[in-house]
C-alpha cells in the first residue's frame, strides 16, 4: 500500500513536467507559422501529462480511501487537472496554441502552489464523509475551470486590442497583471528552492514562536528573537493568524515577481504586453470573444449545480442547514452573482468585445480569491487543513 502513495506522487511530478514541456511546445508553435506536427506533439504531451495526473488522482484515491479533494493541496491539483481537461476538449474545436499556453501556465502555477501546502494524506472528519464530497467538489471545480476559459481568451483579447503606443494606462494595467502572475511563479520558485535546501527560521515571539520557510524579513510586532539579521515588524493591526508570516511570503513573492519581470524585460527590451502582441494579433478577435461568452454560457450551469445546488444538498445533510453564510459559501455566491451579471450585461448593446473581456478577468480574480484567499485570509468552516 505504501508504494501506491509513492507512485502517485511521482505521477504528479511527471504530469507537472509534461505540462511544462507542453507550454514550451505550444509557445513555439504559436510563434511559428502553422505547423501541424508540432501542435500535435504539444497536444500529445499535454494529454499524456493529464493521464499521468489522472493516475495520481486514482492511486491517491485508492490509497487514502476517499476522493482526494479534501484539502487545499488536493483541491488545487484537482482544479489544475480540470483546467487541463477543459483545455484538451476545447482544443479539438478551437486550435489556437496561445489559448493552450495561457491555460497551461495558469494550471502549472496552481499545481505549483498546491504542492507548497501540506501533502500528507489526511483522514476525513465525519462531516466530510459523504459521497457529496466528491460530487460537489468535482462539479464545482469543473464549472470553475470552464468559466476560467473566458478569462484566458479575455486576457488575450485585451492584449490583442490594446494599442501599446497610445493606451498607456491599459498597457500598464496589463503589465501589472503580468507582474502578479509572475509573483505567483516567484512564490513557487522561492518556496521550492528554500525547501530543497531545507531552510527554516524559528522566530520567537512573546507568546509563541513561528517557523518560517522563507527568510523572515517581516516578523510579528512582539518578536523577541529571530535568526535573520533584518527584522521589520509588521504594523500592529495585522494580527490575524500568522499574519506576519503570510505578509512576509506575499512581499517576497512580489519581489520575486518583479525580479522575474525585469529579467524578461531585459530580454525582450519592451513591455511584455507589446512583446506578446504580435503573437496574439494572429488570433481572430471575434473568435476570442465568442469563445469567452460560450465558456460562461457552458460553465455557469455547471458551476451553479456543483458549487451551489450540490453544496446546499450536502450542507443540509452534514450541518443541518443548507446555507450558513460561511465565507467559502458566500464567495461561491458572489462568483455566481458575478457571472449572472456578466450574462445580462453582455446582452446590452456595446458590452461585447473588450468590455466583456475585462469582466471575464474580474470573474477569474473572484474565482482565484475564493480558491486561495478565502482559505488563507478568512477563517471558516471550509478552511481546509
Amino acid at each position, binding site marked *: 500500500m505504501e508504494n501506491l502513495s509513492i507512485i502517485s506522487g511521482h505521477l504528479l511530478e511527471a504530469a507537472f513536467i509534461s505540462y511544462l514541456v507542453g507550454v514550451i511546445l505550444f509557445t513555439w508553435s504559436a510563434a511559428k507559422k502553422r505547423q501541424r506536427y508540432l501542435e500535435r506533439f504539444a497536444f500529445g504531451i499535454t494529454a499524456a501529462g493529464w493521464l499521468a495526473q489522472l493516475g495520481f488522482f486514482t492511486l491517491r484515491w485508492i490509497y487514502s480511501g476517499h476522493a482526494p479533494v479534501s484539502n487545499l493541496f488536493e483541491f488545487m491539483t484537482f482544479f489544475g487537472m480540470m483546467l487541463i481537461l477543459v483545455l484538451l476538449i476545447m482544443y479539438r474545436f478551437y486550435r489556437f496554441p496561445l489559448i493552450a499556453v495561457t491555460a497551461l501556465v495558469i494550471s502549472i502555477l496552481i499545481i505549483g502552489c498546491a504542492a507548497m501546502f501540506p501533502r500528507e494524506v489526511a*483522514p476525513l472528519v465525519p462531516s466530510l464523509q459523504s459521497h457529496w464530497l466528491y460530487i460537489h467538489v468535482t462539479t464545482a471545480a469543473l464549472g470553475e475551470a470552464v468559466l476560467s476559459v473566458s478569462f484566458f481568451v479575455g486576457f488575450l483579447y485585451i492584449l490583442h486590442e490594446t494599442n501599446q503606443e497610445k493606451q498607456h494606462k491599459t498597457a500598464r494595467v496589463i503589465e501589472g497583471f503580468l507582474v502578479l502572475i509572475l509573483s505567483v511563479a516567484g512564490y513557487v520558485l522561492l518556496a521550492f528552492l528554500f525547501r530543497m535546501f531545507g531552510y527554516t527560521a524559528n522566530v520567537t515571539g512573546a507568546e509563541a514562536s513561528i517557523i518560517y520557510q522563507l527568510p523572515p524579513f517581516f516578523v510579528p510586532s512582539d518578536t523577541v528573537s529571530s535568526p535573520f539579521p533584518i527584522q521589520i515588524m509588521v504594523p500592529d493591526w495585522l494580527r490575524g493568524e500568522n499574519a506576519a508570516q503570510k505578509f512576509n511570503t506575499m512581499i517576497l513573492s512580489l519581489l520575486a515577481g518583479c525580479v522575474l519581470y525585469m529579467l524578461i524585460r531585459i530580454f525582450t527590451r519592451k513591455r511584455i504586453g507589446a512583446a506578446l502582441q504580435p503573437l496574439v494579433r494572429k488570433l481572430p478577435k471575434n473568435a476570442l470573444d465568442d469563445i469567452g461568452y460560450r465558456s460562461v454560457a457552458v460553465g455557469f450551469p455547471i458551476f*451553479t449545480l456543483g458549487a451551489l445546488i450540490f453544496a446546499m444538498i450536502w450542507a443540509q445533510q452534514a450541518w443541518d442547514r443548507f446555507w450558513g453564510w460561511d465565507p467559502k459559501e458566500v464567495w461561491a455566491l458572489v462568483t455566481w452573482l458575478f457571472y449572472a451579471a456578466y450574462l*445580462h450585461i453582455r446582452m446590452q448593446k456595446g458590452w461585447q468585445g473588450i468590455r466583456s473581456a475585462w469582466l471575464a478577468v474580474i470573474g477569474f480574480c473572484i474565482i482565484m480569491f475564493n480558491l486561495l484567499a478565502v482559505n488563507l485570509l478568512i477563517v471558516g468552516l471550509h478552511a481546509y487543513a
Partner: protein
Amino acid sequence: MQQCPFCKGENNLVGGPCPRCGRRLTEKLDMRYEGTIRRSQQYNRTLIDKVWRFFSSVRNGMYILLLTLLATAVGTILPQRAYIPIGRLPGEFYAAEYGVFGRWYHYLGLDQLYSSWWYMTLLGLLGASILIASIDRFFPLRRALRMQPVKRREHFLRSQLYVRHSVIDDRERLMKNLRARRYRIRQDGDDYLAEKNRFARWGPYVNHVGLLLVLLGAFLRLFPFFYQDEFIWIRDGETVVVPDTNQSLFIKNEQFIVDTYDTDDPKFKAAIEQEGRMIPKNFTTDITVFEAEDHIAGDTPDLKPLKQMQVAVNHPVHAAGFTIYQSGYQLHEFSSLTLRTENQDGSTADFRVDTENPQAMYELDNGLHAELIDYYPDYRLEEGKVITETKYPRNPAFVFDIEGNDDHKERLFVAIDDVVSETGTNRYSIRAVDYDTHHVSGLSVKRDLTLPIFLLGGVIFMIGLMQGLYWQHRRIWLRRQADGSYLIAGHTNKHASSFEREVERLLDGYKKGGSS
C-alpha cells in the same frame, strides 16, 4: 468622422465594421421580440408605470444585482457574529480583535449583515426586478414566437444576421437535410421557414421562475409554521423534551459513541501529528423518540415509544415530522462532584453535588452545614472575576457557606482543582475528591417545510438555465426571388458563428449533392 451607433465612439465608419466594437453600420434588426413593444416602453404616466418601468429595465436590475454582490462580499471581511467564539461579547470582541475597524464593523451592524433589514430589502428588490422584467417581456415574446409567417418582407430578411443568395432546384433534398439537423419546416407557396429549438427562448423565463421560488422559500422561513429549528443536548441515558413542541415530543439518548482515527495508522500518522490532536472518525447517537399521550400540563406524561434509530453526522433521521441531525457533542462533562469537608477537629464527611440539580443545603455527618451560594457550571476567571462561559457543566465551580454549630461561617470557592477561602479564615476545609462524568450528544431537531420549495426552485432554475444556454433558437427563411433563385436568411438568438457554420455546411452539402 462619424459616430458609431452601437458603441457611441467616434469612428471612421466607411463601410467596414467599427474598429472599436466590431459591428457593421448596416443596421441589423433587433430580433429579441421581433420589433414588438413592451409595456414598459408603452406607458409612462402614472406612478405604477414609472415603478414598472424602473424594475423592468435590465440595467437597473443589474445595479441591484451588483449592489447585492458587493454587500454579500462585505459580510466576509470579518467573521459574522454567528461565528465568533462562544462566550465573547460582540461589542468587546470586534474592538479587541480588529481595532477601530472592528468597532465600526460591529457598530454599523455589518457583523449581522445577512439578516439586516437592508440586505433583505436588496433581495426583495432583486426579486421584484426579476419578476417585473420577466412579465414585461413574456407577452411580447409569446406574441412574437406565435405569429411567425413563413413569408416575410424582403427588408426583414435582408436585415438578418445571415443573408445569402442561392439557386436551389431540388428543394426537397435541402429540406431533407434540414430535417436531418432537426429543423421543423413550414411551407407557404414557394417560400419556406425552417425552425428549431424554439423552446430555448423560454429558458430565461423558466430560470427566473426558479429563482423567484428560491426567494419565496427564503421568505417563508420567517414563519415558524414553515420553519422550526430546535437544539437539544442529551446526556447518555437521559430523556429530553424537544422545546416548542407543546411537550409532546421526547428524545432519549440510549448511547452516544465517538470514534477517533487510530494515531498509529501509517496512512494518516503524519497528518494526525501535524494536526496535533485526535481526529474524530465518527459520532453516532442511538436514540428513541417518544410521543406524549394525553398529556395534561404539570403531569409527568405517559411516553409512547415511536421509533428507535441511529443518528450520525451526514445521516439524519426522520421522526414525527421532524428531521434529527447529529450536530455536536461534548465529552466528559461532569455529572457530579464528590466534595470532602473537614471539621476543625479533623473529622471528615463527603457529599455529592449533582451538577444539574445541586441542592441548596447539605447537612453533613460531621456536624457542618454547607449552603450553596453560587454555582458556575463552566467557570473561567476574567479580569479577576469568576464568570461562567456556558451553562453546561464542563468545568463546574461552587461557592459554599460552611457553618459549624458555633455560628462561625466561612465562604469557600470550590472547583475541581482549586479552593479559595473568600472569608480569609481556614477553620473548615473542603475539596473535591472524586467526580463522575458523562458524554453529551447535541442533536438538532428541525422541521423545514421550505426545503421542497428550495429544491423545486433549484431544479426549475437548472432546467431553465440549460434550456436557454445549451440550446439556441435558430430559423432559416427561404424566399423565392423573381429570377427563381432563393434569398436565404437566417437568425439565431445566440452563438452566431456556429449557426453560420451550420448553414454553410448545409448549403455546401446541398451543392455537393449528398445529404449533409
